């Protein structure tokens, strides 16, 4: 046999040292995978570096003051990002205020046997599909459906509580509040999906133990199950926050890109990503550089939130 003669006519060392294309391919393959693994890290550094290098003129000129200045004046080359930073944070926090109770409520509902499983699984599936709806579609829905729908109600609130700073301006068609609502709807699937997973992963023994003590379903849920799943739920909230902070399209379409910080939720505002999306095409020189500086701020912001989420979720996995 051909094989046998190759295998046995020479000693192990001879055949090991002979040039062997198969072995060469294997070595190359190994090093290619190493290179690709390293490339993932390189891409991350590259992203940071490419942002930094273009942002550098703005960083050099405005320094840290960029973060606290409200001026955005391409004519005088004077730029500051405070309205965008506040807008990003405020819109995300309002979105969380709506989405977290709603999302956790739905997650509890979907993790318990309120519904027969025939209905429950499709419902959970629909929630996941909604996470796949593009943000530009949410933005368009916001413009054409949500804003016309809520405007009369907001007008009434303004009429009644206009003395209160948050409602002090007549509701504009492009405004902070509507943006935050759309963001809330967008991050809802994230919160529901991850919270539901962590609720489902609570050990059934815990539940049986609580039932065994005579606790009702809701006493068990509120006092045992939800607290056990808390780190997973918080992790989901952090991930959703990360998504809300970085979301571009809904904000670019709905927030109105006003460069003023207004106490009123019904007034136009701006976010970092919306600002970049709106101004990038016409920007050049120091203005473009300032937009990259803004992007860096956003990157750091989301990085901090995501790393925190990572830590919280991995803690939850260890407990599991």
């Amino acid at each position, binding site marked *: 046999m051909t094989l046998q003669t190759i295998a046995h006519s020479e000693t192990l060392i001879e055949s090991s040292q002979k040039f062997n294309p*198969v*072995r060469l*391919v*294997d070595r190359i*393959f*190994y090093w*290619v*995978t*190493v290179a*690709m*693994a*390293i*490339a*993932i*890290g390189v*891409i*991350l550094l590259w*992203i940071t570096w*490419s942002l930094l290098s*273009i942002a550098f003129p703005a960083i050099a000129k405005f320094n840290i003051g960029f973060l606290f200045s409200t001026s955005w004046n391409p004519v005088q080359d004077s730029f500051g990002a405070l309205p965008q930073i506040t807008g990003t944070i405020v819109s995300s926090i309002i979105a969380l205020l709506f989405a977290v*109770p*709603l*999302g956790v*409520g*739905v997650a509890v*509902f979907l993790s318990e046997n*309120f519904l027969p499983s025939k209905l429950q699984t499709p419902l959970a599936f629909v929630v996941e*599909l*909604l996470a*796949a*709806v*593009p*943000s*530009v*579609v949410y*933005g*368009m829905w916001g413009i*054409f459906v*949500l804003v016309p729908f809520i405007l009369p109600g907001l007008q009434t609130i303004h009429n009644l509580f206009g003395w209160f700073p948050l409602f002090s301006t007549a509701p504009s068609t492009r405004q902070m509040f509507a943006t935050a609502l759309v963001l809330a*709807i967008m991050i*809802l699937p994230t919160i529901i999906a991850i919270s539901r997973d962590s609720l489902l992963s609570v050990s059934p023994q815990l539940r049986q133990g609580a039932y065994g003590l005579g606790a*009702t*379903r*809701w*006493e068990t849920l*509120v006092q045992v199950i939800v607290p056990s799943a808390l780190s997973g739920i918080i992790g989901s909230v952090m991930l959703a926050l990360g998504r809300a*902070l*970085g*979301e*571009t399209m809904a904000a670019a*379409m709905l927030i109105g890109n006003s460069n003023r910080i207004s106490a009123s939720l019904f007034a136009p505002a701006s976010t970092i*990503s919306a600002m970049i*999306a709106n101004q*990038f*095409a016409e920007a050049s020189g120091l203005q473009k550089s300032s937009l990259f500086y803004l992007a860096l701020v956003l*990157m750091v912001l*989301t990085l901090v*939130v*995501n790393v925190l989420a*990572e830590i919280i979720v991995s803690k939850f996995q260890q407990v599991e």
Partner: protein
Amino acid sequence: MTTQSDNVLEDIAPGTFDTEVTSGRKNFGKLMTGLVIGCVVVAILPLGSIIFMLLKNGLSRLFQDFPSVFTELPPPPLVDGGGFSNAIVGTLITCLIGALISLPVGILTAIYTIEFGRGNKLSQFVRFCTNVLSGVPSIIAGLFAYGIVVLTMGNFSAIAGGVALSVLMMPIIIRTAEEGLKSIPSEVRQGLVGIGATNFQGVASVILPATLPFIATGATLALARAAGETAPLLFTALFNQFQARSLKEPIATLSVLIYNFAIAPYKNQNELAWAAALVIVALIMTVSVLSRTLTARKVY
């Protein structure tokens, strides 16, 4: 603590415990059940509304202009009719470029972290980077591609759009490929070593084929995500009123078309935006459902 009585329960004075679940506890339960059902209703409303409006506004335009919406170019302002054929082609092309970049890099990375360096320092570092990468806002992926492709090539292009999308697809592909590789039992790897196969031979002809359903799932999930992305394309692929003639030209995509036409003050454009939105959502949903059926075909 020794008790005089053998039966502990006898020592409890009558009336210490309620003899039945009190109405207060029952009402708390009812209140909470009502509350979560309320949550579900409130959550379903906007989501249902989106789907309803998509179907209502999108379908009417699709039917009214069938099949010209799929074959004609976008109309200039104040001109009736038109379609988005170039945007459909553009979405497919940019997604394809993204997949061509991210699939090999992602799969080879996963092969390293699971087959060669499971648990070592580099694998942990890659895991960290993958997590960070999946949290990078999509607009930043766009700025990155602008910085490295548009600025070097000198103009906006389909390639730049694809590069931006590949950054967003990469973490999804790495994760699903890792899951797939982890699902291969270690006995199979031992068997491969036992017959004298090199790592490359084993991975290429046994392990990777067995992982294929997972990789297909990852690829479809990544494509579903990329197809809907707008922000990374705004300053990379830009837009094109016409069919792009080369990959080095700006190219139209469905998502950017939706953005441009939704904020345009013209009714015809708005209608086309809804129709395009329906097309892209239908595309993404199909692909997502497809990815589920793919994972169901596991080898192990």
